[in-house]
């Protein structure tokens, strides 16, 4: 907090714009703290309140618009990437899309206040073909609420913030411990995944050149090429290996119940 306040005194509006923009595009920086500090600086007449609000709002809308455009042009690949860490990646995309479809408009207005969701909502809106005008209106409301809430808090409680800043060293140590615990948790989770997937590593693999040679040698009738991608089938114009068929991982055993067991099955995902 003290570092942010010091930066604000020296570089003022540029710091507010930079921090808010970075958070809007998904970089984990404390934009809320910067806005609170900027609000306090406004109360102390170091910055002009209307300029802080205007700059923060502009930076946030710019960052959100960039993510919206990325979502629009990357299609479902972005959500597919995010769903790779889910317990069930195959159903994650469908559930997320349906949930956002039902609550997307409300989500856009309040997502700013929820870490993690704040950077996810604009690209989802882009992927789901929300009209740019509608997106901009809803995002403007959300960004205004966020900016006003934190800047207003800093402005109204500027006196309290000085006292809070003095206790920041203690808070900083607590944050360091929390970060360490989060790091240990993350490493443990990766180790668990490695252990959980150990049995999958023994599944035999085939190189693409070897498979292409097999297919070119006329053994097409003796093999089944199956596409098990979780998000390859959501974008019109999606491509797949020639001659392959879709195999839905969520419905696996029912889908293969009539498949011959004497054929080699080659599976691929992204």
């Amino acid at each position, binding site marked *: 907090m003290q570092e942010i306040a010091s930066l604000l005194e020296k570089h003022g509006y540029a710091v507010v714009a930079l921090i808010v923009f970075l958070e809007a595009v998904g970089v984990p920086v404390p934009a809320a703290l910067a806005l609170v500090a900027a609000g306090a600086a406004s109360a102390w007449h170091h910055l002009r309140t209307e300029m802080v609000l205007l700059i923060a709002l502009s930076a946030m809308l710019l960052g959100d618009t960039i993510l919206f455009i990325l979502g629009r042009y990357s299609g479902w690949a972005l959500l597919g990437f995010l769903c790779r860490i889910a317990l069930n990646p195959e159903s994650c995309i469908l559930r997320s899309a349906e949930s956002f479809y039902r609550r997307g408009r409300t989500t856009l207005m309040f997502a700013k206040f929820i870490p993690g969701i704040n950077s996810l909502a604009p690209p989802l809106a882009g992927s789901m073909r929300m009209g740019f005008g509608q997106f901009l209106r809803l995002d403007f409301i959300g960004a205004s609420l966020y900016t006003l809430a934190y800047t207003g808090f800093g402005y109204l409680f500027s006196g309290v913030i000085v006292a809070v800043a003095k206790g920041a060293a203690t808070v900083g140590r607590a944050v360091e411990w929390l970060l360490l615990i989060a790091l240990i948790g993350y490493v443990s989770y990766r180790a668990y995944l490695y252990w959980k997937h150990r049995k999958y590593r023994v*599944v035999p693999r085939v190189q693409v050149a070897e498979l292409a040679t097999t297919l070119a040698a006329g053994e097409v009738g003796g093999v089944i090429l199956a596409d*098990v991608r979780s998000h390859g089938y959501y974008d019109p114009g999606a491509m797949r290996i020639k001659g392959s068929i879709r195999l839905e991982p969520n419905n696996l055993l029912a889908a293969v119940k009539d498949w011959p067991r004497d054929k080699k099955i080659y599976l691929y995902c992204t």
Partner: protein
Amino acid sequence: MREATSARVAHILREQGFDAYVIHGGLRAWNKGGYALEPVPSDDLVLLPTFT
């Protein structure tokens, strides 16, 4: 883990008695190798909800 879905599916299929393999590198490696691709048939596309 790379090829997580295909490896998991292959493992289950092998447990069911199928002769299943994973294509190393998946679609990306196949495409990079310059081998034949085809568009996903429109009947196979799963249409997710959109705002339009």
